[in-house]
């Protein structure tokens, strides 16, 4: 039997249930707004968004693996390509490109062509330290942790803060292979 071919991001995106883009954007905006009211500190909000993203990511990975049929990526380069081309397309409907590889191949940047979360958004002066899309960095970190990769994901460029693009830096810290969880004498 031929091995299952991984499906392209477009094919999967055409098949999953989609939600209205404005509803998505406005709901996310409402969440951030509420977090700002509840927590008041911009750093706290950033941390909370990352944590929420992490909780999403650990579940998202199973859906991603089930729907896209990708097999284990051979190295981190392939992982980054798969996230940019299949993952972002499948869940957000936008593609990203992978650039800025470092010499060891453990650190790269994902540049989003388009970001549906930030439509209609403008940051006021009181929230200048806010990473509005921090949930995305949490999602990537959580998902990669479930496939044995400990990573650090940060925003390098953010259009809401005046830069010209959305750039997410993904840095692989280490690969954690699974270990036999039971002690031998139990």
């Amino acid at each position, binding site marked *: 039997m031929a091995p299952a071919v991984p499906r392209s991001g477009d094919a999967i995106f055409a098949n999953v249930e989609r939600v209205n883009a404005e509803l998505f954007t406005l709901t996310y905006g409402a969440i951030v707004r509420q977090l700002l009211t509840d927590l008041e500190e911009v750093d706290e909000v950033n941390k909370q968004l990352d944590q929420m993203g992490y909780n999403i990511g650990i*579940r998202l*990975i199973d859906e991603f*693996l089930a729907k896209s049929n990708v097999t*284990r990526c051979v190295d981190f380069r392939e992982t980054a390509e798969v996230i940019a081309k299949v993952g972002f397309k499948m869940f957000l409907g936008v593609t990203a490109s992978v650039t800025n590889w470092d010499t060891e191949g453990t650190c790269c940047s994902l540049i989003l062509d388009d970001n549906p979360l930030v439509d209609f958004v403008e940051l006021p002066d009181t929230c200048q330290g806010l990473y509005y899309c921090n949930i995305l960095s949490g999602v990537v970190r959580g998902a990669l942790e479930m496939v044995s990769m400990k990573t650090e994901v940060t925003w390098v460029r953010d259009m809401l803060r005046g830069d010209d693009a959305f750039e997410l830096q993904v840095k692989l810290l280490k690969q954690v292979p699974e270990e036999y969880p039971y002690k031998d004498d139990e």
Partner: protein
Amino acid sequence: MQFFGGSEISPSPPVPTASGNNAHMMYIFNRNGVCLLYREWNRPLRTLDSNQDHKLMFGLLFSLKSLTAKMDPSSTEKGNLGVPQLPGQGCSFHSFRTNTYKLSFMESPSGIKIILVTHPNASDLKESLKYIYNLYVEYVVKNPLYTPGTPIRSELFNTTLDQYVRGLG
């Protein structure tokens, strides 16, 4: 299938061919060895209590995976036997058959292991295991009230599983 909200799942479930349950048991483990689900449809002989049974099953698969990866004639670099591997790396074994049962196995890169024990004449169950993984995603992972890493207690998931397994050839 309509209950997935119109989205296409691959693969689509096979047409029910026989009545009665065709599978004996099913286990789902996560990467930490926690048995998320154990379903039993037809198991006349029970030798161990369930905790030991789960540990035995998990240990068996862990060792078998290690062994098959080590004996792989096509791969160039192999660690020593027992060296932890990343889930999905190296070659993974699919099934083994004895004269009384067949055990089929699938592991996702995220460490979710699905084991299905059926009668020995069952055909290749890779597609079925993939379908069960899709069911797991829809009914368990997407359930906000489910804590990942804990045993699954979802009536809906159990019922859908039972229905699906009933139709396996």
